[in-house]
């Protein structure tokens, strides 16, 4: 390949310019803002002000706890479900494949606001179709919005509905890139389909699964719209408040940019930790 500094940078400049202004500078800037008291004019440097508050803030620990709880339950369930979808959609025995693909992949194009509105209506206490259906098969109604456990479950159900198909698309593409003859050889050796899945598909797909998991974890860590719109600003009583919502309230309702930046950097630290685990999981065996 040719060494062409000038030409290359001419093509790259517009992109790098946007990157520098709207990403590089903000990354540095929010780090610095997190060390400033931002509710005085002018802002003043006070290193312990936000971080000290963060460590002793029950609202922060509540949001952190809720976020981690959603992460730990929702992400594995969703990835497993996406895996099931991908395996079954990949089966040569499946008829009307297009219809099934549409059913699982359609949520990918649905906006957060539109689906939050629908879920809110579907799960409402007295007139929600879900409670009506539960009632009609003899089960009691569930008060999805006034109790913490059902409210958290509702958030997880909504996110899983929205993102399982997205992950299934990625996993399916990964499966289809595994060469067919590996399976043919295994079938000739009378290896059962189930064993083929555990000993061929899963190991070869590991990097893709880890990629899906990391993207999902980072997405879920910043969860905002669902608790904002479905459970009404993190209700009941902060029961579904996430780090994303805390950041929004602190930054854009109370206009406390310093504290919100500290929350943002906590999320970044978690993301970096998760990325390091990913690199460790997918490292080349020596």
């Amino acid at each position, binding site marked *: 390949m040719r060494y062409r500094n000038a030409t290359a940078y001419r093509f790259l400049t517009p992109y790098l310019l946007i990157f520098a202004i709207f990403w590089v500078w*903000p990354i540095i800037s929010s780090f610095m803002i997190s060390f400033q008291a931002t509710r005085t004019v002018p802002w003043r440097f006070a290193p312990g002000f936000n971080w000290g508050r963060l460590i002793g803030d029950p609202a922060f620990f509540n949001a952190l706890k809720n976020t981690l709880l959603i992460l730990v339950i929702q992400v594995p369930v969703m990835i497993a479900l996406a895996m099931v979808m991908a395996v079954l959609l990949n089966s040569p025995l499946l008829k009307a494949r297009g219809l*099934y693909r549409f059913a699982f992949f359609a949520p990918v194009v649905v906006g957060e*606001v539109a*689906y939050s*509105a629908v879920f809110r*209506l579907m799960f409402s206490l007295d007139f929600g179709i879900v409670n009506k259906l539960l009632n009609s098969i003899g089960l009691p109604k569930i008060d999805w919005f006034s109790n913490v456990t059902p409210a958290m479950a509702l958030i997880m159900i909504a996110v899983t509905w929205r993102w399982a198909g997205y992950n299934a698309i990625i996993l399916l593409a990964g499966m289809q890139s595994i060469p067919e003859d590996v399976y043919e050889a295994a079938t000739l050796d009378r290896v059962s389909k189930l064993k083929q899945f555990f000993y061929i598909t899963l190991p070869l797909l590991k990097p893709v699964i880890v990629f899906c998991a990391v993207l999902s974890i980072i997405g879920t860590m910043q969860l905002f719209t669902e608790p904002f719109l479905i459970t*009404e600003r993190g209700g009941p009583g902060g029961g579904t408040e996430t780090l994303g919502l805390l950041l929004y309230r602190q930054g854009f309702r109370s206009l406390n940019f310093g504290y919100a930046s500290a929350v943002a950097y906590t999320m*970044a630290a978690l993301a970096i930790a998760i990325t390091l685990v990913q690199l460790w999981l997918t490292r080349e065996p020596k």
Partner: protein
Amino acid sequence: MSSLSSARLKRSIALHLFLTPLALIWLFPLWMMVVFSTMPDNGIFSPGIELLPHGNFVDNFNNLQRDTDFVGAIFISVCVAVTYTVLSVLLTSMAGWALARYQFFGKSAVVAIILGTITLPYAVVLIPQFIMVARDFQLANTWVALIVPPLFNSLGVLFMRQSFSMMPDDLFDAARVEGVKEWRIFVFVALPLARPMLAALCIILFLASWNNYLWPLLINSQPGSMTAPVALGTLIGLTKVSWGGIMAGAVMLTVPMLIVFVLLQRHFIAGIAAGAVK
């Protein structure tokens, strides 16, 4: 032989018996969105189970337009999404081209940084972006504020880099021998060859802009400058609001994208799958 095919038949039936209910559950929220959008409010909040569409969509839409200027918001959303898509495709394909086809100083650093941003939470840049655009540039409630800051995206560049690097060298070298300038090679040789990938990228970018919620919510909060999802979001949670209207709005946001999805499914899936499979 017949026992083998009957085993296959059993497996096939089991597969469909499992997958069909799951598919119906998955379609159910979308179906209910359509049903709700056609029901009068007193029908949505009635004790009966209604699973079929009624004929009230137009009334619901009028209620929605009474609650908020949804048509105006749709207009903003369309213009912003189209402009964003054009600009972003241009930026990302140019950057992808440079990363795929040239050797230059700092290349591996640029790639490493782009890869690094995939796993960096957007939350980290959100606050300074807001301060910069709203306070320093005084651009809140403008189209520029909606279009420009989200222009940076990492997966798109990696996707285009991948697409361009798979093209054979001879194609471009032949043109270089003729003395064709690099930017002309990019525009007239490389871009036409990359048409399927560009289509995939366009769809993904348009959708991202169309559905974007958090940034437009923060930066364009004045009633006349809101995008459609933001305008719809302001109604959710109000006490005196037409839920049939909200559902009509949700349908208007969703159904066009579903149609695009069905028509261009292959490009769509290629665009999403490109993130992981390299």
